[in-house]
């Protein structure tokens, strides 16, 4: 099953299991979504539960908040993660603060295709997680495998909090993997060790999980064994799994597609620096995109995205520090 099919399967299973789950967004019903991910849902669940909306990201997320407050579990689709800035107020100020303000549960999921690598240019390629990582009350997920994509989506829909579910669009059709049928939940908030290793810890997520694994294999040919941790859920962040690994390897590299400045790597590096200072044999390092908008032309976009080669170099450099 592809990564895209796995997400669609998760959506379908959730809608079959619970009539309070609805899907709303731009072009999600008749057209089946810009990426055809929601194709077939209208036919199976009808136009009361699969709703085409006007172009209005704030209206979509605002309506999802209102529907969640009176008992539905809406799954709102942003056509591209880049468009979510229009819904920032509803997600960050309204939905995410509800529990703290008055114990108000807002069980909603905002799905958003993110990431570069498909030549989308500055408005259709962004990684948006760092903007939302700062928001208390929100959860953020970014799966890297089909199995996780389905299982984490099910957990996100079942969660009583607002969840930003980021999907890497470059993985939609390029990645295949085994996926369990039915309600195959994968819990939120737990990282997965994708490759064990004794020399360097690599904490990563999304498309970079794949490039980091490729880099780790290349580093292994040079005698360096990297442990690759796929974070899966970005908020709440499973810092314990990273710390447990770093306590063994004494070296940490954080790899993300998002820009370097103020990205998740900064938070992880700071946490490890504070809590494992005496265990470290090398400075915590980061490989990330440069602090620029995402460019369009292939030579620029290719240079923008962290490559497996850059990651391999960083792993080996840390190991030989």
């Amino acid at each position, binding site marked *: 099953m592809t990564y895209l099919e796995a997400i669609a399967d998760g959506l379908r299973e959730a809608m079959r299991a619970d009539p309070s789950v609805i899907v709303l967004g731009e072009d999600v019903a008749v057209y089946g979504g810009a990426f055809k991910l929601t194709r077939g849902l209208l036919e199976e669940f009808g136009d009361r539960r699969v709703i085409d909306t006007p172009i209005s990201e704030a209206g979509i997320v*605002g309506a999802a908040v209102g529907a969640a407050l009176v008992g*539905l579990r809406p799954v709102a689709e942003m056509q591209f993660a880049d468009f979510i800035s229009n819904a920032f*107020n509803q997600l960050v100020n309204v939905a995410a603060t509800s529990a703290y303000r008055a114990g108000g549960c807002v069980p909603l999921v905002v799905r958003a295709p993110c990431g570069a690598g498909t030549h989308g240019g500055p408005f259709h390629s962004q990684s948006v997680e760092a903007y939302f990582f700062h928001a208390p009350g929100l959860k953020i997920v970014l799966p890297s495998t089909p199995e996780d994509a389905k299982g984490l989506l099910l957990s996100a829909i079942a969660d009583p*909090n607002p969840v930003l579910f980021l999907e890497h669009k470059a993985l939609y059709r390029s990645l295949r993997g085994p996926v369990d049928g039915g309600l195959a939940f994968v819990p939120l908030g737990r990282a997965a060790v994708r490759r064990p290793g004794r020399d360097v810890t690599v904490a990563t997520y999304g498309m970079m999980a794949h490039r980091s694994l490729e880099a780790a294999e290349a580093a292994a040919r040079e005698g360096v064994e990297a442990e690759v941790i796929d974070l899966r859920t970005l908020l709440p962040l499973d810092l314990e799994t990273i710390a447990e690994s770093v306590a063994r390897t004494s070296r940490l590299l954080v790899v993300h597609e998002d820009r370097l400045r103020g990205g998740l790597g900064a938070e992880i590096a700071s946490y490890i620096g504070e809590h494992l200072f005496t265990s470290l044999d090398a400075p915590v390092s980061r490989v990330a995109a440069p602090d620029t908008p995402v460019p369009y032309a292939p030579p620029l976009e290719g240079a923008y995205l962290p490559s497996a080669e850059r990651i391999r170099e960083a792993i080996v450099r840390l190991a030989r520090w």
Partner: protein
Amino acid sequence: MAAGNAPAWPAGAGTPRTVEPGRAAPPQELPEGIGAEDLRALYRYMLLQRTAEERIIHLYRQGAVVGACFTGYGHEAIAVGAAYALGPMDVAATLHRDLGARLVLGMPVRLYFANFLGRTGSPTRGREGNLHIGGLGPRILLHTDFIGANVAVAAGAALAFAVRREERVAMAFFGEGALATGEYHEGVNLAAVQRLPLALVCWNNQFALSTPVAQEICGPIVERMAGYGMPASAVDGNDVLAVYRAARTAVDRARRGEGPSFVECCTMRIRGHSEADDASYVPKALLDEWRPRDPVARFEARLREFGVLDSGEAEALRAGVVAEVDAAQAWAEASPPPDPTELERGVYCEARPWP
């Protein structure tokens, strides 16, 4: 006091009309289904809002209320009249001038005091102040502090009712300032194209903080709203029966599945934006024009005129309201302030109701 003949005014749904603020003619007959008990109840809610808010202003001046202090002084007819049109399963998204609506929908006035005083007896446990409360039972939606955003959230509640095929209605309260925001447009437009059961209640109090309505919105508001393909009417927002009648028309229409309607309640913000604002930018002539139209005093005079409230009854009712406010304030003051150890609690909901 039985309902009279069918009212000749307002035309209400289907007939967009413009009324100069405060110049709308009062309805000549009682709205259908409104009897003497309803009239006394409407008056009591308005008086309760007024009395509670006057008390809060007093506490603010004493320093017992910290931060900002907003009231709906002069907006009582809108808050009470519109909410009174809702059915027992309907919900409302209320804002900082809508205490009366919350009272009608069942919020005990003690929670109002507890929230202003930042006490744990309030549903926000001191995380929010002012009238920023909601999520109270099934009928009052969680407070949203952005006027336009509030409308999109109310549209979402209406969407849920439509999805579940429930004959329920959502009502959104907001000031005319909201009409300039993008989120207002997105929420209203979604409700319009989806024909959602939503009643939009706008208090046009002529100022968004210091900005006069002419600098907020071009042209008559009801004409703009008619452009969304929904009925829009303007009523005297200081006449509780006029507000009730128009809101009832909107609510009934929504319940029939005919989509959203808009009611512009024309009024005037008699006090500052908040109690820290002396409103010196408001022309004195405007205040002189509106002060004699105080909605509470005016409705009391009408009830006496109708013969449903004599001097003795009015006095007893007033004493009852003051006693209720005294008790509410005392209850709130006895409620402990939050302990600092609570600071990081409750950022996330813990319950997992599904599967």
